[in-house]
């Protein structure tokens, strides 16, 4: 790829903007075409320009960076967006990717890492810095398989069985040595979890799902 890569930096911190510019100054193929202090400035800039890369800080004074990413993505499908942050939280990383981000780099990066991230996303690949990569993996590996099945708590299982036996709230409370209020909450929770408006329907769904 010989053409010049046009880069927009969005960060409210002047030192950080300087730092990034310094890291990129020796790369003739990378050209910084703009730097915005706020989301508003960035959006204005993007009205007329279409950079290849947007380096986006997610903590901006006027708008949340994740929202800005989503907003940019609605109009601009072309530019590759790389999140540039100091946080390493799985929710934020996946949140950015869900909103159209292409890469995620932590601010305490090496120069080489920044360059690699830009080159990677230009090839239509996702780039995550090593630490972010570990976080996302953690999220996928620890979570139970997401098969949308309803998980019942121990008490809910007990109460479901007793409801199936035709017992009423106060009777269940007595049987399980719980307060009727507690049982009522569990009952309401069960209805909500199964999206049922009546106990009959709840029991029917539970049976169909092999829970009874």
């Amino acid at each position: 790829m010989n053409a010049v890569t046009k880069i927009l930096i969005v960060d409210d911190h002047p030192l950080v903007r300087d730092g990034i510019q310094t890291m990129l100054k020796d790369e003739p193929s990378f050209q910084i075409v703009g730097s915005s202090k706020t989301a508003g400035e960035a959006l204005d800039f993007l009205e007329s320009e279409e950079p290849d890369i947007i380096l986006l800080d997610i903590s901006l004074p006027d708008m949340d960076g994740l929202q800005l990413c989503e907003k940019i993505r609605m109009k601009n499908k072309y530019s590759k967006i790389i999140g540039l942050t100091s946080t390493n939280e799985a929710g934020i990383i996946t949140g950015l990717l869900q909103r159209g981000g292409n890469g995620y780099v932590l601010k305490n990066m090496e120069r080489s890492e920044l360059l690699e991230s830009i080159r990677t996303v230009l090839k239509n690949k996702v780039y995550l810095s090593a630490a972010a990569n570990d976080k996302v993996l953690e999220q996928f590996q620890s979570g139970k398989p997401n098969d949308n099945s309803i998980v019942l708590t121990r008490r809910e299982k007990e109460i479901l069985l007793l409801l199936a036996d035709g017992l009423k709230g106060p009777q269940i409370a007595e049987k399980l040595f719980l307060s009727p209020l507690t049982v009522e909450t569990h009952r309401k929770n069960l209805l909500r979890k199964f999206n049922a408006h009546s106990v009959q329907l709840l029991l029917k769904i539970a049976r169909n799902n092999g829970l009874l």
Partner: protein
Amino acid sequence: MKLCIGSVLLLWLICLSGMQISAQPISKHYLDSLVHLANNPKPDSNSLHAYIQMYRYFFDRGFYDSALKYASHALPLAQIIGNGKSLGQMYHRIGMSYTNLSNYDSAASFLKKALTHAHASQDTLLEVGCYNSFAYVYNYQSDYTTSIEYLLKAVHLIDASESPAIKNMLPQTYSSISYNFLSQKQFVKAIEYAKKALLIKGYPHENRYRVMLHLNAFDAYIKQKDISTSKKHLDSAIAINQSINNVILSAMVANNEGFYYQTIQDFSRANKAYLKSYQLNKSIGNRLLQSEAANNVADLYLKTKNYDEAEQYALEANAIGRELKLYQVVADTYDVLKKNASRQEDYKAALSYAELNKIYADSALNEEMHRITLSLESKYQNQQKEREIAALTITNAQNELEVMRRNRFLIAGGMGASAALIILGLFYRNSRQKNLLAEQDRKYQQEQIKFLERQQQVVSLQSMINGQEAERTRIAKDLHDGLGGLFSTVKMYFSTLQHETPMLKENDLFQKSYSIVDTASIEVRRIAHNMMPEVLMKLGLVNAVKDLCDNISAGKLMTVSLEVHGMNKRLNATTEIMLFRIIQELLNNVIKHAQATEVIIQFIRESERLSVIVEDNGQGFNTMETDDQNHSGIATIQSRVNYLNGKMSIDSEKNVGTTIMMDFLINE
């Protein structure tokens, strides 16, 4: 407050019919010898007799389970030893026991068998007894019309009979008819039958029945607002009662007296009378009536502003009521407790009592609705049959006179009207129930408003905690954007420097500085994250808790799963932070103490209600132990839950696990 005078009368009827059969008293000692007799390895007519005696002993004292047990034991003996007559009587006894145990299907089937045997052995006394018992079965199911039909059959048999024993059943039968009319609110008819019965003289236990009949009349008159006539009947009942010594009856009279004084708003006398009824019922161990009486006493104490006494009796009535599943009594007592608590400005307790009151009132209403529906159904089915018969008649008459045709329209119209009435009635009940529920909701909301007003007073504490979290947020942001940015930038420069001056790679001092800056920036990130996770701010509670769960699960010591329903809308920031801290704290507790392998965190939101549950499968702990390490953690959590106006309950079982349940009202 609903008065329970109706059910008291009804029970009295059954007690009396039991006593009609067994006049002689039986001591406990005698009972022991009966058990001995009955357990004779070679059963004979003595064992049968012993079983019957034991059945009577328990039936008269209201222990219907035991009564049923002994009657059932006696049944095979009666089949072998006894004749058709004694077998019929045994079926009748079993039927009566089932009636009192509210098992009406079984009751009806045994009474039917008894009736067959009564027919076969031409035992008219038993037949009359069976009709009377059927009348109870239907009365208990609120089908008063059918009940009266059976009683009229009994009256018909009694009228046709010459036997004095059968004739003596007439006052009892009239009394039951009167009671059924009373239940139907047909007060004129109720009075008519009570008076008919009062005219009869010279039969066994006459005074007992007279007391009861006067009480029936009293009830009918007072409900017609004829206070002076009602007072006359009450006075007669009191006078006759003094001449006989029957505790149940005295309790009955005292209860009616209480009702009278309550109606004329003489609360101190009403209270005295209810207290007497309470003591009498307590003395004979009738817990059902004792609970109802205590309920009345509590209500009256509340009216006369004797709050401590009110609470004491309400608690007693409540305990028995819950044990015996008297939902209305339990609901009523929670109402008293609620009023008391709000008077003492304990609005939290008041709110919880109000909720309990609502739950039990709902249960009571459901039972009542269930009974009404049953009776409406049977009435509807009767109507249906009548309709079919009428339709047949009409077809036959079709070709006859024009007049007949007009009649047919009249009948059809009438039937249509009556069907419409039934439907209207159903709608009415339905809407009435809705109104009742709406009313309850309104009261409940008022309670909540009061409760929230109270909470306003601790607003200074809240703003302190609020300030603390706001401070944390600010520091976290400063660390991230300020210090974090600085360290990052230094690192960027170092990194560029190293790129431009490759020999720096060999420079030890430079490499040390480089790595320290790197460590420092990671450290800043860690501290800022602990102060306030960014994901909590930006993406909300659920995402933050999900991260937390994944973090812990990644450690492989335990799996934390998250169940979320109805949380699409974010809560306000303060609530989210507080809930996050609570979950953090609870998970810390689980990790430190529970030795669990699985944890479920559950958020369920339904309009204003938010239920949060953290459940583990760990070793559990004793929720009563106050010096436990667990407890200090729990206290912190409890204060946070309080801050959100929530309620927390802990349900822990040794070696099974702990469920912590929190309920919040989200009002935005």
